[in-house]
Each structure stands twice: as structure tokens, then as C-alpha cells.
């Protein structure tokens, strides 16, 4: 459509792509043009429709309207197989890998060929990796590898199929800060070798550092197309959010009281029988938010579940106000010890998606008065309570009897926060509360937590999002392989040093063994 004759057709062009999920429009007449050999960023908040758009290009979703052109020719992409045949490959945010299979098996999966020549393929994969400047053991099982290496396997998988348009969905969100540099190095190599890269992200510095051109998305629409050399972070931020971002979260100093939650030498066994939490000690005082930073999978989930009583403790102790929680049921922890818990996976743990909003507001207390009496449910009391919370926490919904499944992520998180904080906890364990939320919702979560702190609640804030953590935490501790590897007060906390600690070293930088 950019009908200038001297210019070759773009590598990929979208025209008026629309995708609806039920009543919700995820993509609204999106146009996009990606030039051959460029790095093209798609910038937008969580929920802006970036991933949906990319899944359409990759043949995973079918659009309800619009056209896709590849090098000028209109194509239909019904399956990932067809996308790969057109040279389009995608690295998903959550890698599409079989953890129990080897690197080679993951790479060659789906390739034609009757016989399984693992040795031959393995050698070729190793050679391909070397041309990109890294080493990999093709016969290692995926789950043994660090996340950075798993990501490189995803890239190998695409290059092995000779894909030359590579889509990356939030590629740095799973990496440790020290893995980000080498990853961008790799992206530059891909570009130099003539490949086209589409980078989906919500991080402005990545756009400015890596991309030639950027398309900004907001609420399912594409709102801008700009050359990165002609813009700056501030302008992009305004385009992305639709207003100036004013970070008016004023954390300030709290009134720190005595120690409330104390973990001593805690050991917890996780999935696959590995020791997930390995001798972790930490104390949280009243009126204090302690941030626990760390790369995903370093024992955070098991730690949070152990405190909540959902995961058995192997060794060490958990105490609230000096009383050990050993053998105390989750229900008693909540009621007697006033322990609130916002779990990391709100859809799978924090909510019963198929029950109503009203019931979910009472999910952890319906078996007690006033929501039930002598085993009889009191739906009136549940509805009244939910009505009050929904108003106070501004939950957007059609009715209280609506299923939670149909709400947005932000509203789902509001229900959990409302429920946990309304119980007026002394201790609050919050896991990944901002994951997948947009700026407005994140701000709401942070402010709610600060308000709880003002009331004297001791808060353990577990997150992989360092920036969010630094906004509200009074102290930041870093967890690596189930232990605390460092701790610093907010004033002294620097993203860079924290990043090094998250990778497991308290100061010295070492190469990571793949």
C-alpha cells in the first residue's frame, strides 16, 4: 500500500487485522508494516493486544477481519506450520518447549523425516549455535538449562527451520539482568545476518536501544508508527499509556514496629523433589514492606506457599509474633494469626474462576460467620460484603453474580486484594501482584499495599519485576536458589547491583555455564 515503486514490498504487512474474543475486541483494525532486515518493536502495555496480534501472524489465532501480506503477497496463515513455511518464527514469552525432552528433540520436533537421527541433527545444531557465538549441549534435557539457554534453544529451533522473520514476545521478561546484554548482542547478530526481528515489549529502554522502528499499541488499536531516532522515551510512554505517566506513589518512611513475620533457616521441597527453599532466613516488621527480588523459579512460589501453609516445610521455622506456625492449618493461620496471602497465580490459585464475584470475595471465609452459620450458607451476607468491597475497590463488573473468569486481569487482582486486605491482616504475603497488569492497575495495587503498610501491616512483597518492587519496598532482599544472597535498604538499592545478585553473585561477575 505504501506504493512507492523504488521500495521493495515490506517483509510483512498487516491490513486492518481485527480479532474478537466474545464481546472483547483484542485487535481493532490494526495496520502494520515490517521492513526486511529491520528490528521492529511493538510497544504497548499488558493487555494492549500485542501478543494476540503476533499469535495471528503465527497462525495460532484466526483473525475476524483483515489481511496479511508477506513480501507483498496476500497469504492465509491457518497454522504455525504455514507460518514457518513462510519463514516466520516466534519465540513466545512462555517458551513452547517440552522440558523432559533434549535440546535436539525440541529443535527437530515437527520436522519431516521418518528416522530419528538424533546424532546427526545434534551435530548440526551444535554447529549452528557456534555460528551465533554460543555453545550448547544438544543432548541435555531442557529443564536442566538456565532460562537464558532455553531461550537460545527457542531461537535455534526457528533458525534450524530457516525462519528469517523472528518474533520475540517480551523476551527479556524471563531473563536475569545479566542475561539481557548477551541476548541483545544475539539480536544484533541476527540483524547483521539479514534477518528481520519483531520485538514485542512494554519496556521503553529496549525499544530505544534495539529497534529501528516502533509501532505503539493501546487498547487493541495501533496508535502510532515512529522511527526510534525521531522520538524519545517520554513521547513513547505518553503514546503507550495515553496520558503522561505520573508516578505519584510516594512511599515515604513508614512507622516500623516490632518483628512480626520471622523465617529461620527455612527449607521447603518443591516439584520434582528438589530443595526449592534452602536455608532461608528473613524477618518482616510491622509497618514495613520487604521486597523479595529474584528471577522466577528460585523458590519464591514454594516460600510463599509454605508461609501460607499450603506447602509442607522440610526444616527450619516460620513464626508470627514469636509463635511457630508449625502444624497450624492454613485456615487458622488466616484467622488466628491474621495472615493474608495474595498468590502468584491468581487464576489457578487465588480465585475460583467459575464461581461468582460475590462468592470469591468470601472464598477464604465463607465457612465462618457471618457468611455461614452452623454450616448454612448466608448468601445475603456474602452479597452485602461483596457489594461493599466492590465499591470500595472499584471492581468493574456487570453484576456480583458474574463469573470471575469473565473479568479482566486487573479486576481479578482487585478482588483478591480486596478480600485479603479487608480481613485486616497483620502479615500479608503478596506474590507477583503486578504481573500482567497495565500501568493503572499496577498503580492501584501499589497504593493499596502502601495503605496497608500505613495501618501497620507487615508485608512480604515477592516479585520478579524489580522496578515495581523498588517503588514500594522499604528493604529489598534477593533470593537465589532458595537462599537470601543479599539485602539492602531502599535508599541504597540500585537496580544494577540487585541484578547481579539475582544472578547469584554478590559482586563478582562470572560467565554462566550453559
Amino acid at each position, binding site marked *: 500500500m505504501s506504493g512507492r515503486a523504488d521500495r521493495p514490498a515490506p517483509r510483512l504487512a498487516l491490513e486492518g487485522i481485527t480479532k474478537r*474474543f466474545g464481546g472483547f475486541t483484542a485487535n481493532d483494525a490494526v495496520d502494520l508494516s515490517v521492513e526486511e532486515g529491520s528490528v521492529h518493536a511493538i510497544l504497548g502495555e499488558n493487555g494492549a493486544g500485542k501478543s494476540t496480534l503476533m499469535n495471528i501472524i*503465527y497462525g*495460532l*489465532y484466526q483473525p475476524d477481519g483483515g489481511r496479511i501480506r508477506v513480501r507483498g503477497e496476500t497469504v492465509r496463515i491457518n*497454522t*504455525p*506450520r504455514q507460518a*514457518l513455511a513462510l519463514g516466520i518464527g*516466534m519465540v*513466545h514469552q512462555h517458551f*513452547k*518447549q*517440552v522440558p*523432559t*525432552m533434549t535440546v535436539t*528433540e*525440541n529443535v*527437530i*520436533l*515437527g*520436522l*519431516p*523425516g*521418518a*528416522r*530419528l537421527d538424533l546424532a546427526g541433527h545434534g551435530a548440526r545444531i551444535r554447529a549452528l549455535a557456534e555460528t551465533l557465538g554460543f555453545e550448547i549441549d544438544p543432548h541435555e534435557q531442557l529443564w536442566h538449562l538456565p532460562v537464558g539457554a532455553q531461550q537460545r534453544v527457542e531461537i535455534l*529451533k526457528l533458525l534450524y*527451520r530457516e525462519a528469517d522473520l523472528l518474533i520475540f514476545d517480551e523476551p527479556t521478561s524471563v531473563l536475569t539482568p545479566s542475561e539481557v546484554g548477551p541476548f541483545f548482542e544475539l539480536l544484533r547478530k541476527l540483524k547483521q545476518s539479514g534477518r528481520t526481528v519483531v520485538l514485542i515489549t512494554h519496556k521503553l529502554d529496549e525499544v530505544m536501544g534495539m529497534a529501528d522502528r516502533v509501532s505503539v499499541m493501546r487498547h487493541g488499536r495501533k496508535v502510532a508508527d515512529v522511527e526510534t531516532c525521531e522520538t524519545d522515551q517520554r513521547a513513547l510512554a505518553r503514546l503507550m499509556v495515553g496520558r503522561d505517566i505520573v508516578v505519584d506513589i510516594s512511599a515515604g518512611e513508614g512507622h516500623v514496629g516490632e518483628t512480626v513475620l520471622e523465617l529461620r533457616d527455612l527449607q521447603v521441597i518443591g516439584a520434582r523433589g528438589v530443595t526449592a527453599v534452602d536455608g532461608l532466613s528473613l524477618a518482616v516488621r510491622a509497618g514495613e514492606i520487604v521486597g523479595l527480588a529474584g528471577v522466577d523459579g528460585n523458590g519464591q512460589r514454594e516460600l510463599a506457599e509454605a508461609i501460607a501453609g499450603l506447602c509442607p516445610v522440610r526444616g527450619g521455622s516460620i513464626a508470627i509474633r514469636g509463635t511457630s506456625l508449625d502444624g497450624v492449618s492454613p485456615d487458622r493461620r488466616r484467622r488466628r494469626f491474621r495472615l493474608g496471602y495474595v498468590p502468584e497465580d491468581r487464576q489457578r490459585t487465588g480465585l475460583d474462576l467459575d464461581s461468582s464475584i460475590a462468592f470469591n470475595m468470601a472464598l477464604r471465609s465463607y465457612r465462618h460467620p457471618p457468611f455461614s452459620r452452623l454450616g448454612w450458607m448466608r448468601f445475603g451476607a456474602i452479597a452485602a460484603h461483596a457489594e461493599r468491597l466492590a465499591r470500595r475497590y472499584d471492581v468493574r463488573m456487570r453484576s456480583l453474580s458474574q463469573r470471575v473468569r469473565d473479568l479482566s486481569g486487573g479486576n481479578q487482582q482487585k478482588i483478591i486484594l480486596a478480600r485479603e486486605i479487608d480481613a485486616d491482616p497483620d502479615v500479608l504475603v503478596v506474590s507477583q501482584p503486578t504481573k500482567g497488569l497495565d500501568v493503572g492497575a499496577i498503580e492501584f495495587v501499589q497504593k493499596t499495599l502502601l495503605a496497608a503498610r500505613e495501618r501497620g501491616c507487615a508485608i512480604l512483597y515477592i516479585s520478579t519485576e524489580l522496578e515495581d518492587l523498588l517503588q514500594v519496598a522499604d528493604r529489598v532482599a534477593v533470593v537465589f536458589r532458595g537462599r537470601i544472597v543479599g539485602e539492602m535498604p531502599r535508599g541504597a538499592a540500585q537496580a544494577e547491583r540487585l541484578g547481579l545478585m539475582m544472578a547469584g553473585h554478590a559482586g563478582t561477575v562470572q560467565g554462566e555455564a550453559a
Partner: protein
Amino acid sequence: MFDFVFDAAQFGEFLATGLRLSMPLIFAAMGGLLCERAGVFNIALEGQLLLGAFGAALGAHLTGMAGGGVAVALVFGAASGLGLALLGVTLRVNQIVVGIAVILFAIGFTSFMSRVAFEGGGNSLRLDGFRPIDIPILSDIPVIGPVLFAQDLLFYLMLAVVAAIQIVLFRTGLGLSIRAVGESPATADAAGVPVFTLRYGVIVAGSMIASLGGAYIVLSQVFLFSDNMSAGKGFIGLAAIVLGRWNPVLALLACLLFGLFDAFQLRLQFQSPDMPFQVFAALPYVISIMALVGLIGRAQPPAAVGRPYDREMR
């Protein structure tokens, strides 16, 4: 009680009986294993044994040949597989619900149809079944010879099926795709594996294999059809899959174990006329349950078993 072990002829006969009794279990287990490896929980095995048995009886009755029985059994097996796939894969109905529905349908359908198709009912049939084929020389080896090399066609077909599944699953690209679909259909899909086609193929193939188990009961063991003659064998087959940790050869061994145990309790029944026979007859079921209970370590099924795949599921 265990004297027969020291008598070559008696021991050989014991082994042969055990092997015969394990045959339906093996076919069921192989069919179910193939499906589960692709992430489909085929709980309908019990019904497919029954449909296979009825199909075999019908085919053999109409054509007068055992081969005709096998053919019709396979057709019934394939049809049940197509139904399972349509409901469980395309329409994404809960696979267990579908499986149970197929079992209940098979029970009702076969008991009625056997009365329509066979004058005097399935019990009055005297079908021409398979006869053992003696492999020269090998069948003369003492003890093992008659057990392994004087069996009928379905036995050799069973060996071929087990070997084929083992090789396809672990030595071919197709097998890699099947296993990946069972572990993570989204991964397989993103890598260009046609998840739906593959699951359809595997379910139909697995169901046909399971139906051979029913055909074996009719054409090699009893030469007639009776209501509900599968008698829980499909579920013992499911137990054997778990016990064999989703590996074809190990599952085969598990089935043999169950079969030998069945042969053993038959001997006990015969030797202890004073004891109520039910005490012994219940043993194969008890043993299957105990095998699951006593399983050392936790056997992990393919990660995606039982979950329908929906590409646009968010």
C-alpha cells in the same frame, strides 16, 4: 501349591495359560498407551474390548472365517475411536465422560445386537476361531517352545504391535511428535506438528488395537459371545499402563504378570474345591489394585493427558 513349577509339562501349560489370559490385557494396554502418549485418556478400552469381541463374533459368524471376525472387530474399534476423537478432540468434551459413555453404549449395544444378530443369543455360537500355528523346530523346544512358538495368528500380531509401538514412539520423528503432543500440545503446535490430525490418528489406531483384545477373547479363547464378557479387563489394562510407566515393553510385562497371576488363581481354584471359588476369582482384580498401590516411586503420566487442546485458550 507351587509343585507344578518343577514339572516341565505342567509349568509349560501354566505359562501358556497365563500368556493366553494376558493377551486381551496386552491389546487393551497397547491401545490405551498409544492414546495416552498423545495426551488422550482412553478410558473406553473396556467398551472397545467389548465392541471388538462382538465385532469378531459377528464377522466370524457371517463370513465363517476367523479373519472376517478380525476385520469386523477392527471396523468396530475404528468407529469407536472416531467417535471418541470427534467428541474428545474436536468438540472438547471431557475425555473421561466420553470414555464412560462409550463403555456404557458398548454394553447396551452389544447385548441387544447379539440377540438380534445371533439366533439363540451369542452364548449358543460355536465359532470357527484361530488355530495355533506350530513354528517348525522352535516349537519343539521344551517348556518355552509350545508357549511361544505354537500360538495362533493373533499372538504373533500382538508381538508385531508391541514392537511397532515401541519403535515408532522412540525411534521415529512421528513418535517424537506423538510424545510431544502428549507432553505439551501447544509446543508441538507451535513447532508445526498437526496436533489434531495426530490425535485423531492415534486414537483410531489405539482403539483398533484395543478391539483386537476383544477379538482374541472370542476367536482364540471361547468361540462365542456373552454379555459384558470384557469383565473389567479394559481397566486392568489401564492399570498395566500405569504399572508399565507408559512404556510399551514394560506395560507388556505388567500384563503378563497379571495374566500369570490369573492362571495361578485358576490353578488354586482347581486345587482347592473346598474354598469358595470367588475368593480366588477376585484375586486378579485385587492384584491390579495392589500393583498400583505398591508402585515404587510416583509414575508420571504424559503431562497433557486428559486435557483437550484449544489453540485459542488463553
